[in-house]
């Protein structure tokens, strides 16, 4: 029986019609086999456009639909829904991408029109062979995994837990808190970071709906949306969390040194105890120390044991081993955060060569009241600096390192200026390319700084050197910079230089993203489902993102995204069920010879060999429809639904028929 195919050609305003001769395309489509009607419209995706299609289906004029418009990645869902509303199985629809891969990318109108025709013919031939598929639903496990215990993970976990949903929050460091726990003040309000973060951390620690696994890493993730199986490695702490009461006797007596005791001020910077058994900082949640086996004397030569001896609760367990725990969750929120750019390779800035060149994070720790300098700003030799230069865009907006803007550096740099001015009597220079003060209250903060006697020099710093040219430069760090406002190269002698190192995705992200089948962009951050309309979701259903794993963000944006991610998860949980991929692989048992060639091809272990029947079978709940097995099956017993051989052959023929 021949099919009745309706072809709908979209002008997309002038986006398509400006390059593709719609009349010619329509005439062409009318002549194709099985095409019963062809319509054109300015915007097929608009309400009236959608109604056109729906009505034709309802009127019984057509039983297959081809829309020639934008990319299926853009509107496939939209038009599939139209089909469903009209009463047509949504898999009897095909899309011809005549915008993103045609009208937008080619110059010659005649050639672009020809290409549009070929793409439409391919879709028409393909759709004629498509078959209805049934939607399948799977239940959603209401438990959620949050990976990363920085402010993003904390916020997401609390939102979900407060809504009564169970959360597993895992953090690879001994404590949650992330970078925010290292800050003294936050811009632009100058809130005390600890004051706003600590209560949240405590809530996480105490929340009945949150299972907190610190000092833990994701080992494996399998399954699919609504039904993920998670394996987590709880790294050995060597301290029994049940017994430890966080008294601190162990680190007070520990002779091991995690942070060197000798050396200059900058080398000794630390927020928590500098011993081998330590807490990363005193407000840590959980408030349980961990042994750093790299420096612990006991682990090096077995000769110590002081911490165990002084622990009244016998909580120290040197023989503790990593433990693998497993969970089932319905959704995953990635909140793996950032790490700062390592400025060492930028030799001209002297980091690692000059004692008084420091990174922003080091400067944060030094400023933190709970750090071991007590929040004092000191040079490496312990003296107070008389002049400090702050160098912007180190590793950001730089083709050699990261092209993107790290978004937070301008503002934290301004915060530094303010803190310096507040704490000591020093000259402060800000060396900037552009000051980007885009957030709420940010411009006002900048304006305030302009009144605090901070010197702003517009120009990218060329070099930080110790080689003096003039007398005044002797014994100083000299910043050489082209002041683009004055139009001259300046050399400014300073006591100390802070490098505003940019934000990069955390080094653990690629592994974790890989486990979740989430893609990473060339900037190193997670690719979101849609840059504008899907910024908290990913291409993998059930995996959401929050905070700096997506892109550099400040705290307010991070918190907002975390709440958005948790709300997206809540919406999934509330639905209780979700439709999953219908375009899976399936085995024709009459053809399968049980050669077991396909079984190892499935990355999701969805293919099992049925001993009784002597054939392989696909577990369609696990299958994600990649089609690798169908391509590998030697006897064509496996077909990839919606991407069947004959459908693809038809498409190839259509493309090449002209």
């Amino acid at each position, binding site marked *: 029986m021949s099919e009745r195919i309706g072809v709908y050609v979209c002008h997309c305003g002038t986006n398509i019609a400006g390059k593709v001769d719609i009349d010619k395309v329509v005439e062409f489509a009318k002549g194709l086999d099985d095409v019963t009607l062809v319509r054109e419209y300015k915007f097929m995706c608009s309400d009236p456009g959608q109604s056109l299609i729906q009505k034709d289906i309802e009127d019984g004029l057509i039983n297959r639909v081809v829309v020639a418009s934008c990319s299926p990645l853009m509107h496939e869902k939209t038009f599939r829904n139209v089909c469903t509303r009209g009463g047509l199985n949504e898999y009897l629809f095909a899309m011809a991408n005549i915008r993103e891969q045609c009208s937008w990318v080619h110059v010659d109108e005649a*050639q672009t029109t020809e290409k549009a025709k070929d793409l439409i013919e391919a879709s028409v031939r393909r759709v004629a062979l498509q078959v209805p598929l049934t939607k399948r639903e799977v239940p959603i496990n209401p438990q959620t995994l949050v990976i990363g215990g920085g402010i993003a993970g904390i916020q997401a976990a609390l939102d979900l837990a407060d809504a009564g949903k169970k959360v597993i929050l895992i953090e690879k460091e001994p404590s949650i808190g992330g970078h925010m726990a290292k800050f003294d003040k936050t811009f632009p309000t100058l809130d005390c970071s600890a004051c706003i973060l600590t209560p949240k951390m405590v809530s996480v620690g105490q929340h009945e709906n949150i299972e907190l696994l610190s000092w833990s890493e994701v080992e494996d993730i399998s399954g699919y949306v609504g039904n993920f199986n998670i394996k987590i490695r709880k790294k050995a702490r060597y301290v029994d969390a049940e017994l430890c009461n966080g008294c601190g006797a162990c680190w007070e007596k520990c002779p091991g040194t995690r942070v060197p005791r000798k050396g200059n001020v900058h080398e000794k910077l630390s927020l928590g105890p500098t011993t081998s058994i330590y807490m990363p900082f005193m407000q840590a949640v959980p408030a349980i120390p961990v042994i750093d086996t790299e420096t612990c004397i006991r682990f090096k030569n077995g000769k110590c044991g002081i911490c165990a001896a002084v622990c009244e609760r016998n909580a120290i367990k040197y023989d503790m081993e990593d433990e693998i725990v497993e969970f089932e969750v319905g959704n995953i929120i990635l909140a793996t955060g950032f790490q700062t750019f390592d400025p060492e390779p930028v030799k001209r800035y002297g980091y690692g060569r000059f004692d008084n060149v420091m990174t922003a994070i080091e400067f944060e720790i030094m400023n933190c009241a709970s750090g071991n300098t007590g929040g004092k700003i000191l040079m490496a030799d312990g003296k107070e600096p008389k002049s400090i230069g702050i160098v912007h865009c180190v590793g950001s907006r730089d083709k050699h390192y990261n092209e993107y803007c790290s978004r937070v550096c301008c503002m934290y740099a301004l915060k530094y200026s303010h803190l310096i001015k507040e704490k000591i009597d020093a000259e402060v220079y800000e060396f900037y390319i552009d000051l980007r003060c885009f957030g709420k209250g940010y411009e006002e903060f900048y304006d305030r700084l302009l009144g605090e006697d901070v010197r702003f020099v517009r120009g990218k710093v060329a070099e930080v050197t110790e080689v003096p040219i003039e007398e005044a430069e002797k014994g100083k760090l000299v910043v050489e910079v082209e002041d683009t406002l004055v139009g001259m190269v300046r050399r400014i002698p300073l006591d100390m230089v802070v490098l505003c190192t940019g934000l990069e995705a955390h080094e653990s992200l690629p592994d974790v993203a890989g486990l979740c089948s989430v893609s990473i962009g060339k900037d190193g951050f997670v*690719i979101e489902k849609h840059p504008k309309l899907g910024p908290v979701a990913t291409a993998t259903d059930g995996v959401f993102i929050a905070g700096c794993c997506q892109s550099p963000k400040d705290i307010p944006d991070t918190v907002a995204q975390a709440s958005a991610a948790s709300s997206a998860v809540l919406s999934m949980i509330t639905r209780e069920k979700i439709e999953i991929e219908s375009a899976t692989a399936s085995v024709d048992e009459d053809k399968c010879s049980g050669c077991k060639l396909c079984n190892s091809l499935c990355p999701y272990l969805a293919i099992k060999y049925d001993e009784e029947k002597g054939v392989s079978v696909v577990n369609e709940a696990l299958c994600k429809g990649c089609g690798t097995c169908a391509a590998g099956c030697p006897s064509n017993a496996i077909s990839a639904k919606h991407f069947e051989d004959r459908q693809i052959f038809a498409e190839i023929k259509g493309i090449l028929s002209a």
Partner: protein
Amino acid sequence: MTFEPKIVGFLCNWCSYTGADLAGTARIKYAPNIRSVRVMCSGRIEPTFIIKALFEGADGVLIAGCHPGDCHYQEGNYKALRRHRLLQRILPEYGVEPERVRLEWIAASEGERFATIVNEFTEQIRELGPLGVKESLAEAMKDDIDHHEEHIEESGAANEA
């Protein structure tokens, strides 16, 4: 008329098709000779698709998938690579220049790279000239004619008489 190569692209949904879309969104112009077939994963691409495309008139075939390690389905692209390496070995035996079938890794963020590859590939195929499998087959068989056809027709006619 100048030779305009016909190029069929097989693009994986998650990286390369998205990358090709990005070229569109960014309005990067490239040669109009490619027409792409979207598959979910480069692991779905059977060598038979490629052979079929060549037979149906393609002068070149571009297969594109996620970069190694980035496959949305974990390892489909490795399978594509292995099939490609083996297919490359047999193409010359068919008299088809192996350069006509090209495998590239194109990420979702690499719109510009997609455009560059398509341009480069189009030019390469233009230089190689038309493939013309069907034409070549017809040429190879043009003298494979049985002259007795008429004779049989005659004898058939005689029989009926």
